[in-house]
């Protein structure tokens, strides 16, 4: 837990190698909370919709995929853009409705809308 209501396998302290958890790079993310849910946006440029996988389980949402690397016929002299496999995992402090998650990819930004699970009300029968 990082004190911001989110935690994830890659969000702890320590070595980057450990933090990366076996993937090549971590897409930068913003996380916002609204009364009805969470909004997560990730910067994943140059990756097609089909190459991104979003997985939701309990209170955790994981985004993973692969960004293509070298272009054939090109010699790269200077490289800052991260390529290869990526994964990020987010755990939320409130229960989420994993069936209601919506994902959209626009201009290299993946937007996830994650609704909170509304508690079910059970009326108590009997008594007076």
């Amino acid at each position, binding site marked *: 837990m990082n004190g*911001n209501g*989110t935690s994830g396998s890659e969000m702890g302290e320590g070595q980057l190698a450990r933090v990366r958890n076996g993937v090549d*790079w971590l897409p*930068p993310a913003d*996380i*916002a909370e609204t*009364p009805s849910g969470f909004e997560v946006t990730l910067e994943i*440029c140059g990756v097609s919709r089909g190459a991104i996988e979003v997985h939701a389980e309990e209170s955790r949402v994981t985004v993973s995929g692969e960004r293509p690397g070298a272009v054939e*016929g090109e*010699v790269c002299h200077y490289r800052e853009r991260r390529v290869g496999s990526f994964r990020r995992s987010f755990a939320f402090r409130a229960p989420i409705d994993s069936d209601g998650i919506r994902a959209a990819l626009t201009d290299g930004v993946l937007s996830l809308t994650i609704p909170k699970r509304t508690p079910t009300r059970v009326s108590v029968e009997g008594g007076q």
Partner: protein
Amino acid sequence: MSANWTLGRELSELRARLAGALREADQRWSLAGAARPVAVPALDFSETAEAFVVRVDVPGVPKGELDIAVQEGVLEITGRVPDRDAAGRELLRSERLRGAFRRAVPLPREADLANAKASLADGVLTVLIPRRLPGGRRSVEIE
């Protein structure tokens, strides 16, 4: 392939890896909600037999917020990430680019900047600068 060439390439790869690691470290330990004063979008520089290629990751930046200029052999890319602050949302974590940015790439002499072409797809800005044909040298016939 000469030894110099290999060394140069290894150095540039090392430099890029270091830049990436530093940026990643910055992401990891940046305070939630803290706005970074200057955004630095990641950039690649490559070449093919026919052209030089500059690619910049500009996630969430529409065409209208990008400006590409060429002056004295330098390609300059400036732009702005549109504000995305909205009422009723509490930002728990902020790692993405925000604000204005500028990147400049000095190009080799043989880059034909007048014929540079740019395209934007999936958040990647690609600028293609054709290599000038070896036209500076021309044989003169003796009459």
